[in-house]
């Protein structure tokens, strides 16, 4: 039976899975069962280099952080396309070179746009509502 012999290839993986899960669950369970614990104030405090949390985690962040993160991801992904191009650069000859120039030109146009919009200008003071028109709100 070809089907069963095919699936039997996966038996070692199944054994490994059982061992890994069993070990993790078993160790925690054993220490939970036979270990003894005394609760004290010192023990529940942040340990060594930990910092005691202040305030609520649901704070509002300046939109600049998101902008920079998005811009980073965009340019990161766009740079990925340069790698396959570099591999077949010789076969593509001039056509590939020109097409890649166009592509980089488009990316650069986007870069010029966000630069002029002041995405990288972190010194810009927060504006009051109704102030002069400015790129980032």
């Amino acid at each position, binding site marked *: 039976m070809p089907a069963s012999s095919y699936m039997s290839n996966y038996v070692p993986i199944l054994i490994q899975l059982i061992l890994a899960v069993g070990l993790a669950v078993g160790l925690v369970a054993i220490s939970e069962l036979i270990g003894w614990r005394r609760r004290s104030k010192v023990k529940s405090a942040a340990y060594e280099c930990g910092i005691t949390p202040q305030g609520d985690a649901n704070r509002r962040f300046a939109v600049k952080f998101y902008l920079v993160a998005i811009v980073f991801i965009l340019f990161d992904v766009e740079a990925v396309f340069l790698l396959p191009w570099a591999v077949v650069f010789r076969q*593509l000859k001039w*056509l590939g070179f020109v097409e890649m120039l166009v592509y980089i030109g*488009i990316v650069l*146009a*986007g870069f*010029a*746009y*966000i*630069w*002029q*919009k002041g995405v990288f200008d972190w010194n810009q003071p927060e504006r009051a509502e109704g102030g002069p028109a400015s790129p980032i*709100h």
Partner: protein
Amino acid sequence: MSLVPAEFYWRILPELVLAGFGAVLMLIEGGGRAGNRGRLGAYVALLGSLLAFGAVFIQAANPGDAFQHMFRVDGFTVFFDFVIIGATVVVVLLSMDYLPTQHLERGEFYALLLFGTVGMTFMVGSVELIMIFISLEISSISTYVLAGYRRHAPRSTESSLKYFLLGSFATAFFLYGIALVYGATGTTQLYDVARASLTPIVGGGEADRVLLLAGALMFIGLGFKVSAAPFQVWTPDVYEGAPAPVTGFMSAGPKAAAFAIFLRIFYVALHSSGHAWFWMVYVAAILSMCLGNIAALLQTNIKRMLAYSSIAHAGYVLVAFAALGPEGISAVMFYLAAYVAMNIGAFAVVSHFAHREERYVDVKDYAGLGFRFPVPAFCLSLFLFSLIGVPLTGGFFGKLYVFRAALDAHLVGLTVIAVLNSALAAFYYLRVVVFLYMRQPAEEIAAPPMTGAFSLVMIACVAVVIWLGVFPNRVLEFASRSAAQMLR
């Protein structure tokens, strides 16, 4: 032979022009701090969209495949390119009025319009599922942002967020459908899929079942984009919150493009399982017509009413879709051309009267406008009559061809439901006309000036609606020829 022959570029010339002008707009908008950038942007966008419209003629003169058979220029592509880019030209003109009134004039608005149009035109020309998916995303992402363009208005933000969340969800369905098509046939090129589905690589009817599941998933994704019931829930909220010209744009361009790929995918790639997916279309058509028209009866906000009416119109288009033949395709094409003209026209008048912060968008605000502003009110009435399907308007022949295609395919029950629905729809369209001409105004709404741009919009839309209503033959013949070409 070189890798990319020159005619490939001629075939995507409209898209190249639009993308180039979009990039220029971004650079203009970013540069300097001068006050008139928005105005300059509007003129650049107008020039760009007009040139792209002209470029469609060059595209049409170079029919054939391009880029490893991922893109195809045939009559079908050319027809929808004219419709979509024409809609963009009109929306740019309309925004030249609307944006300064709302203090929103920025170059990005026009850049997003042009980029969205790039996506839509690529959509209608693509014959490969990955390309279709990418262009669908380009068009969707632009419209998500445009919907939230009045970002100080909570409704606009709500509209954008709802559209984005539900839209990405629908896109995920579509993408999963593509994956299954590839799994069943080993290709994503629509015409290859059609061939492969006749000689399946997986035996025992497996491929058929997988393809049908793929069709169902893609139906969900595209049904959302064309706002067909039961995937229509987002439509009223999004249409109400988005800026009025954008609503006009959304109800025209993306919808026409989505119907175009709907046709290509289902009529070409999934042709072999037509008997099975026919019932999905059938049920969706009945639901869209009935839900859209009944809900529209209850609306007092004009934008919401037109949103429900657009759901109903998606239903009429699906009636022709269910005809499963070349007559169905040409009826869909003709109907969409007429629908785009009359719907953008109606939204143009709505955005003309909307005033700052879109204050006047209720039916009651339209009381007595027929005598105070005779020209826009007359045009609005004409568009509404066309939406009803009164003779001498494009809407009449649109409905006629849809019903004829359905009857030729022996779908008598469906046709009866469609006819009853159009009678029902007349009620809520006529109510607006009654308010325009037969009611006394409760509040004097501020007089919007008739600018040159708005006059051009009215002339263009009225001309197309009347032209399609009086001389439909040329357009219909072109549509029939393209339909035959598409099915090949």
